[in-house]
């Protein structure tokens, strides 16, 4: 499945006027490809991710997921899309304090009404895939920053989405752990045929990307991959 953002414009109220966060932005994310979105702070990268994740409705433009425009969906439909078809990896490893690493994943299946047994097996496989099989029973405070981010990635993949949206996945990590996370994202994108969109401000990450889009002042420009 592919995700296409076509001519998306997003503005926010700003005093008496409006601030343009995204200005006629177009972006294509294809299966098995990692698309990196770079740009300085405040350029509109996270707004782009929020629009793609159906968390914000743009003023105009289309957000197409395998041909279906997500912009016209109601709140319930958007929630279902996020649950079943889009995986989100947050900037900080946003995990639920009371759940173990395994439960961070199985809760996703619970949201989708899936039987616990099958979900448990798949969650363990995913934790193994991100190198955390042995830490399945640990809670967030018992995991390192890199481990928490891996759990977040595994959680994003739990309901087998076609699109993975990743927001600054290494911002809270040192360079060694950050590189490991990028390698992991690269590998999972290829192995699982994900259309991955990764927002980053670090140009060193572009080496992992198949496509690069730079956003400056809300406008997108395609760059050649590093």
């Amino acid at each position: 499945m592919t995700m296409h953002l076509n001519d998306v414009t997003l503005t926010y109220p700003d005093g008496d006027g409006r601030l343009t966060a995204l200005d006629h932005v177009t972006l294509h994310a294809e299966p098995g490809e990692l698309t990196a979105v770079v740009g300085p702070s405040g350029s509109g990268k996270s707004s782009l991710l929020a629009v793609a994740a159906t968390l914000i409705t743009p003023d105009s433009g289309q957000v197409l997921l395998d041909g279906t425009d997500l912009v016209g969906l109601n709140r319930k439909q958007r929630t279902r899309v996020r649950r079943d078809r889009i995986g989100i990896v947050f900037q900080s490893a946003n995990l639920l304090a009371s759940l173990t690493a395994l439960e961070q994943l199985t809760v996703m299946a619970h949201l989708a009404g899936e039987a616990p047994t099958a979900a448990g097996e798949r969650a363990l496989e995913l934790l193994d895939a991100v190198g955390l099989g042995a830490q399945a029973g640990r809670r967030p405070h018992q995991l390192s920053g890199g481990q928490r981010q891996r759990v977040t990635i595994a959680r994003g993949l739990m309901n087998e989405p076609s699109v993975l949206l990743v927001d600054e996945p290494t911002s809270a990590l040192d360079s060694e752990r950050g590189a490991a996370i990028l390698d992991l994202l690269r590998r999972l994108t290829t192995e699982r045929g994900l259309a991955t969109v990764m927002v980053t401000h670090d140009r060193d990450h572009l080496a992992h990307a198949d496509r690069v889009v730079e956003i400056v002042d809300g406008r997108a420009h395609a760059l050649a991959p590093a």
Partner: protein
Amino acid sequence: MFVALRDLKFAKGRFALMGTVVTLITLLVVLLSGLTAGLGRENISAITDLDADHLVFAAPAADQDISFSDSVIPAQTQADWADVAGVAAVEPLALGMTRAESGARTTGVAFFAVDEASALPPVAVRSGEVVLAEQAAEDLGVAAGGTVTVGGVELEVAAVAGSDSYSHAPVAWISDADRPMTGTAPDAATVLAIRVGTADLAAADAALGTETVTVADSLNAIGSYSSENGSLQLMRGLLLAISALVIGAFFTVWTVQRSPEIAILKAVGASTGYLVRDAVGQAFVLLLFGTGLGAALAAGLGAVAATVVPFVLGPATVLLPAALLVVLGLVGAAASLRRIATVDPLTALGAAR
């Protein structure tokens, strides 16, 4: 309740604290309910146990309510009621408070004076005899065959029967011929205990200058009962309201604290309905545990208390208040759930704006 149950285990301290509050409030409410019912029973059992479905009072003045203390039904009115079509039985009953003595022992009793043929007492009572409630016999240290003085009249104890009391005094059933002086005509009754068939009560009341009410409605005519019961019920109601507010406040703070987690769950696809069900389930588990423990403790304490104070231990005084606390607690918790709907999943992204 996937997240809710895990939150309960994870945040043990917080939920234990709230559970303790619910337990203590339940303990208070159940003990108060048992005491209210116990005190109420001491006030009204002699009336509620009457073999009658309605009581006829003298009609009060326009700005007054019916009252056992003020009601006087003359002999003529009693006779007229006996002639009312559709009334199955009319039993005159004169009652009041007096002193009973046996040797050096004395106690206050409520005398219930009836005709010798009356079916109202637990055991038929004849002139020169008294049928004492168990408490009165115990206080006076007498048994059947003994002698007591009731309101200055010496009577033989025909039987010790029943545990009825009126206005916190045990009942002494006596013959109308032996009733103490109360300032009313000797043949006047306080009320008429009747069993109604097809009678037109309103027409009879209008014609005879009386006011007929059901036995249940007559209880407020006992002055001590209406004021005492009203105060205790007010306290009980306030406790229930406080518990709903406390539980509501707790879950409001709890919901505010976990707003970031709610935003994450919404961002990854949890519906508001799912989150509300989760939170209500959490509140229900907490309330069930807290009220269950509180009710069990109160039942244990109540069983001990019942030996020294008037206390009723039963489903109506234990299970009903506990169930009411669960319902009101859920209402209080539900008020806090509105916040779940307003949490914006976008905040999980943090840097979106």
